[in-house]
């Protein structure tokens, strides 16, 4: 029986979770990533697979209600099993078919192996087990990984990446055939969530980050990030949006944008929506609305017109107010008298860490550097960092 992840885009990438494999959802501690494993389980339950869900920090009743919250009526499926490690831990009797006392290693091992023999898919909260049973429990977890290799089942781990010792992280990395990272887009606060495959040993894939939202009911939904392109009147915002977009429209009257520019671009695995705001003052309210949904801001300035910088700065402040990361496109660099980026920085009193990219939007020069720079701010921390599990693809 074929088992799939049930996660949008992910299934196209990894195709299936083959027998004998361990797939780990590697979850940022501030992100609700458990849903990924729940969605994987429910998708396969609906396809008549025998599934088991190991619970330790939630009671079986809470597990069912968590599934229900997403519209997944697991209790109506006879192939759904809960492996209850919770009740014994809090000193209550269990009424599940499978249960064990998590502080008793042999008992847990016995039950887990029985479950693996009888199910096509077993979801295990490995970090919760490590939390409750101590770091030595990784030996036990290792045994399950070995045990499953020649069985017709699969393990799906949820590993919440609390600041564990490296030894533990490495252990999980080595024992997982596939790792799907579920992370947050950090910018002081977490502004959005993404997932991406960082390792898979049964397919060759190109790594890709997908932003998602959780929908109740519904589960994991991929979505497209909105990037706001703003700047003073006539700075070149519309030109910029058209230059980077595969398809785009503007609502202009007499060459000035009265509603919005909208462009779409597929870039480095990201699917991005760009919104250009009108430059004239009376459109400030629109800017405010988009600012609430956007994930980042590109500020376009006409480098030949320092007299417009105060207005640009003012626009920047109103979006920075929402805590969004931004980069500055110093446009019209092809014109004589265009100020170089460092002059723009000085004249606009921008801090050193704000990226300012020289651009000529009409010629399409520098435009992708601007996108790169913003994506770097949004995801750099997670995708460039060295402690990232490595991709084997």
């Amino acid at each position, binding site marked *: 029986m074929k088992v799939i992840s049930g996660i949008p885009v992910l299934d196209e990438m990894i195709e299936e979770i083959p027998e004998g494999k361990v797939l780990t959802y590697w*979850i940022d*501690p*501030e*992100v*609700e*990533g*458990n849903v990924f494993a729940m969605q994987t389980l429910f998708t396969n339950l609906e396809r008549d697979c025998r599934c088991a869900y190991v619970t330790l*920090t*939630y*009671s079986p*009743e*809470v597990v069912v*209600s968590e599934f*229900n919250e997403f519209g997944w009526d697991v209790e109506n499926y006879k192939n759904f099993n809960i492996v209850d490690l919770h009740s014994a831990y*809090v000193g209550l009797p269990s009424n599940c078919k499978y249960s064990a006392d998590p502080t008793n290693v042999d008992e847990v091992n016995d039950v887990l192996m029985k479950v693996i023999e009888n199910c096509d898919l077993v979801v295990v909260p490995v*970090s*919760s087990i490590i*939390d*409750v049973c*101590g770091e030595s429990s990784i030996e036990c977890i290792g045994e399950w990984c070995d045990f499953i290799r020649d069985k017709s089942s699969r393990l799906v781990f949820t590993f*919440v990446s*609390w*600041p*564990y010792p490296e030894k533990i992280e490495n252990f999980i990395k080595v024992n997982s055939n596939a790792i799907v990272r579920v992370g*947050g887009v950090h910018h*002081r*606060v*977490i*502004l959005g969530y993404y997932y991406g495959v960082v390792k898979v040993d049964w397919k060759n894939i190109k790594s890709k980050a997908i932003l998602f939202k959780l929908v109740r009911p519904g589960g994991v939904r991929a979505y497209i990030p909105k990037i706001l392109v703003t700047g003073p009147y006539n700075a070149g915002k519309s030109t910029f949006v058209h230059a980077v977009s595969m398809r785009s429209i503007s609502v202009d009257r007499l060459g000035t944008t009265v509603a919005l520019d909208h462009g779409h671009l597929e870039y480095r695995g990201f699917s991005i929506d760009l919104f250009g705001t009108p430059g004239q003052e009376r459109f400030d309210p629109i800017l405010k609305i988009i600012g*609430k949904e956007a994930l980042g801001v590109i500020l376009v300035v006409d480098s030949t017109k320092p007299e417009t910088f105060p207005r640009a700065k003012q626009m920047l402040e109103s979006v920075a*107010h*929402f*805590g969004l990361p931004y980069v500055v496109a110093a446009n019209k660099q092809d014109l004589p008298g265009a100020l170089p980026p460092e002059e723009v920085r000085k004249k606009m009193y921008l801090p050193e860490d704000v990226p300012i990219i020289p651009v000529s939007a009409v010629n399409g020069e520098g435009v992708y550097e601007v996108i790169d720079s913003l994506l770097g701010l949004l995801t750099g921390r997670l995708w460039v960092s060295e402690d990232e599990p490595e991709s084997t693809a």
Partner: protein
Amino acid sequence: MNMSYQIIPNVELKKGSNIMVYGPTFTGKSMFVRSIFRDFISRGYGGIYVLTKDSAETLMSWLGTGYDSRKVRIIDCVTKSMVGNVKDTDSVKYSTVMDLTGISAKISKFFEDFWRSGIKNIVVVFDSLSTLLMYMNLQTVFRFLHILTGRVKITESIAFYIVEDGMHDEKTIVTLKQLFSGVVEFKEDNGRKYVRFVSPFMQTEWREIVVDEEAVVVT
């Protein structure tokens, strides 16, 4: 908006502070943090309150009606384990004390909500860490707090965490203290209650306090 806030006379808390509130039971710690919380809200702060002993309902009825409800967000770790199925609302989310991942994700979501509505001054109250330590080992709670205190620092918020005196061993308290920039200590002596502030840089005298249903007054 002031950059700092006096919780007891002569003690100015900087933004980004994580403060432990430590003392025996029934010395007024909860009332103390509640009234601080209410003060912050009335000064325009967004507030996130994590409850492990009282329900959201209890806190809301204590807060009454005289506050801006858009500025208050609650994580209730009590109700769900008692009544089972409860629905989250925009301002109240339900979790359980053993579900540190859930609590962490919910706090982070509230931070995002506040920032996206332009509220960047945020106060967090955690009442109490002692309940977590009843269910989870010290290391696990420490890792959880490492993430939370980090978020408080990077967003320049202010947070208060209640810890009961007499429930934990010395090692637990010493380990936890590493995460905090200071401690508000409570004590009881001959039926009278006192409070002081201790940090690596300063220590105040014990000040007598009066605790009632409404507030804690430092005399």
